[in-house]
C-alpha cells in the first residue's frame, strides 16, 4: 500500500523523525484555517502519489491568507496525471541550506534492506544513480543484526554530508530504519531531507510503501486511505475479497491464479484487444466468488465483452460454471461472454454450461481461441 505524503510524514514523526508542522485539509476553508494556524509563509501541497507534482503545479507557497485561499482552491480538484486532488497538506515553509536524499528499501535482488544516502537531494534518485553513482552511499543490512550506529556514520561520511550534521543525519537514518522495520514497510524514502540554516535536519517529503501482507499486525495503518487513487471498481472488489486491478481497455478478464491472468492479458493484447481489468478469482474459487466477480467486472461501463479463462487445479470447472450460471440468473448481462474451461472437472463444467444454454455465452476450447473470439466480439 502506497501512502500519501502526509500519511507517511505522520508515520515518520511517530518514530522520532523531525517533519514540518502541518495539517491536512479537504476543502479551501479548512486549508485557509490550517494556513492561518501554521503561519506564513506556508506550503500548500497536493496529496497525490505522483512524483514531480511540484512541477505540475501541485505545490505552491502562500505568503498570506489571500494567497492560501487562491492556491488551495486552484489545487483542490486539479487533475495531476490522471489523479484528482482530494486532499491538501499545509505545512510551514522550510528554509533550506542543503537538500539530501535518504531511503530504506527492501532490495529483492540482495534479499536484504538497502539503506541509501546522498547529498544530491531534490532530484530523481534513479537519475542520480545513472549520472553520478558515486554520489550515493549505500549498504545492505542483515535483518537479524540490525542497523548499527557505525552503519549510519559510515554512510554519512561516505556520502560526504556536511561534517557538522554527521550526527543528526546518522540519527535520522537510524530512525528511518526503525520506521521501515517497525511499520513493516517495503520502502521509506525522504527526498529531500533538508538541512536548515539553523542546522536542523528535517524530512520535507515522504514516500512510504507498506507491506499489504503485514497490515493485519498494524491496524492503525490498515485504515489509511488514498481517495485520489481509489477506483470504484477496485473498492468494490476489495470489499468482496477479490484481487482486481483496473486497466483502461474494454475486455473484462477473469481467470484463476495471478500468473494465468497476467498471461491472459498478454494473449488478448496479442490478438489486438485491450483488457479492462485483471481479476484473479483465486485457487479453489466457489460459485459465490464467481458471481461477485462478474458483478465487479460488469460495473465498469467500458466493458464490451468478457473472457473467462480457467485452468482448474484446485479450482473446479463445474464450480465455476455453476457460479457463472447463477450470476447470469441474477444479473442478466448485456455483453457477450467467452468461456474457456479446462483442467479439473473441465468436462463437467463444459456440460453444465452447454445444458444451461445461456444466451450470449460462447465456449472456446483453448486460451488462444478464446482470446481471438472475445476480441472479435468486443470490436
Amino acid at each position, binding site marked *: 500500500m502506497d501512502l500519501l505524503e502526509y500519511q507517511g510524514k505522520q508515520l515518520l514523526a511517530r518514530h522520532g523523525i523531525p517533519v514540518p508542522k502541518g495539517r491536512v485539509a479537504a476543502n479551501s476553508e479548512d486549508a485557509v484555517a490550517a494556513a492561518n494556524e501554521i503561519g506564513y509563509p506556508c506550503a500548500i501541497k497536493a496529496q497525490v502519489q505522483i512524483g514531480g507534482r511540484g512541477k505540475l503545479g501541485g505545490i505552491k507557497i502562500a505568503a498570506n491568507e489571500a494567497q492560501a485561499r487562491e492556491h488551495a482552491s486552484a489545487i483542490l480538484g486539479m487533475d495531476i496525471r490522471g489523479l484528482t486532488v482530494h486532499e491538501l497538506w499545509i505545512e510551514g515553509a522550510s528554509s533550506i541550506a542543503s537538500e539530501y536524499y535518504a531511503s530504506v528499501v527492501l532490495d529483492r535482488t540482495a534479499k536484504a534492506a538497502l539503506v541509501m544516502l546522498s547529498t544530491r537531494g531534490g532530484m530523481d534518485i534513479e537519475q542520480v544513480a545513472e549520472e553520478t553513482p558515486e554520489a550515493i552511499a549505500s549498504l545492505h543490512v542483515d535483518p537479524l543484526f540490525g542497523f548499527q550506529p557505525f552503519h549510519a556514520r559510515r554512510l554519512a561520511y561516505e556520502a560526504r554530508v556536511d561534517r557538522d550534521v554527521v550526527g543528526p543525519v546518522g540519527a535520522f537514518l537510524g530512525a528511518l530504519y526503525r520506521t521501515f522495520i517497525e511499520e513493516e514497510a517495503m520502502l521509506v524514502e525522504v527526498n529531500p531531507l533538508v538541512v536548515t540554516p539553523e542546522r536542523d535536519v528535517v524530512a520535507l517529503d515522504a514516500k512510504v510503501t507498506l507491506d499489504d501482507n503485514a497490515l493485519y499486525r498494524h491496524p492503525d495503518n490498515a485504515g489509511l486511505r488514498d481517495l485520489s487513487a481509489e477506483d470504484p471498481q477496485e473498492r468494490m472488489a476489495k470489499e468482496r475479497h477479490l484481487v482486481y486491478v483496473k486497466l483502461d481497455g474494454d475486455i473484462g478478464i477473469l481467470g484463476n491464479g495471478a*500468473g494465468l491472468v497476467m498471461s491472459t492479458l498478454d494473449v488478448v493484447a496479442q490478438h489486438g484487444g485491450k483488457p479492462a481489468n485483471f481479476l484473479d478469482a483465486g485457487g479453489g474459487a466457489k460459485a459465490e466468488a464467481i458471481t461477485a466477480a462478474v458483478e465487479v467486472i460488469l460495473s465498469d461501463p467500458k466493458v464490451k465483452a468478457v473472457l473467462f479463462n480457467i*485452468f482448474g487445479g484446485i479450482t473446479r470447472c463445474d464450480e465455476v460454471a455453476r457460479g457463472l450460471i447463477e450470476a447470469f440468473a441474477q444479473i442478466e448481462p448485456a455483453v457477450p461472454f467467452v468461456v474457456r474451461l479446462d483442467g479439473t472437472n473441465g468436462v463437467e463444467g463444459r456440460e453444465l454450461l452447454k445444458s444451461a444454454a445461456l444466451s450470449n455465452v460462447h465456449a472456446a476450447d483453448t486460451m488462444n481461441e478464446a482470446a481471438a473470439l472475445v476480441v472479435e466480439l468486443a470490436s
Partner: protein
Amino acid sequence: MSVVVDRDTRLCVSGITGREGTFHSLNNRRYGTAVVSGVTPGKGGQELEGIPVFDTFREAVAASEANTAMIFVPPPFAADSILEAADAGITTIIAITEGIPAHDELRVYTQLKRTPAVRLIGPNCPGVLSPGKANVGIIPAAFFREGNVGVVSRSGTLTYQVGNELAQRGFGNSSIVGIGGDPVPGSSFVDIIALFEADPETELIMMSGEIGGSGEEEAAEYIDQYVSKPVIAYIAGFTAPPGKTMGHAGAIVSGTHGTAAAKAAALEAHGVRVGRTPTEIADIAAEILAS
C-alpha cells in the same frame, strides 16, 4: 532422477489438521508420497487416517524420520513453522502458505542462509511434483507424466497451462518446481536451474517467469555461464502497467524495473529462447525436443 522430491521423500506436514492441510496431505499420499507425520501444536497424539500428529517438529522428526516439510499453516504462524522445521533437522521445506509478511520472509531467508543444508521452496507456491515419484503440494498431478522437461515457475495455474500444452504434444516432466510469487522467495530460478542441470533425467529446462524482481535476469547470466542444457523461458505480464501489483505480492513493475520486456531481452541476450504465449513456449519446447 528428479529434483527436490522423489521416492526418498519422507513428508511431515505442518498444519495437517486444518481443512486444506488435511485435503492436500491425503491427496499427496494417494499419489504415492510417503506422508509420515504431521505437526499441529496442541493436537499431538491424534492421527489423520493413520498419519501420526505431533505437537512439535522435533518430536515428529524423531519418531517418523521425516526429511521434508510442507507448510500449510496460516500466514501469522508460517515463518515460525518454517524455522521450527529447519531447527528440527528437516532439510527440504516447501511452504505453500500465501500472504506471509515480507519482513518475516526476510528474517527466515537470512536465518536459513546460515544453514546451507536447508532448502526452502516458496512461500506462496504450488509445491513440487516429480511425476511418478512424489507430489508435495497442490499441483494437480493428473495433467503431468514422467518425462525429461524440468519446469521451474513463479506461478501455479500458469504452470498447469504450459504443462498441459506440453503434455498434449506428448512430453512429460522430470520435476515441476513452483518457487512462488512473493518478493523474498526461499529458492530462486538460479537455485532450481542448478539442480536441473545436475539431474541426469532432465534434458530441457523450462522457466516460467513474470514481472517484478530480478530473478529472471539473474538466471539469464547464470545460464550463460554454467548451464549446458537447453533452457527456454516464458514470461507473463508484457501488458501489465507499472505500479500495480498483479495478484502476486512480488509481481509489480516499479518504475522501469522488472518489466516483462526487460526480462525477455536479458534472457534472449544470453541465448535463452523466450515464448510470448504459453502456446508459443510449448511449440519451442517441442521443436527442441524433436531435434
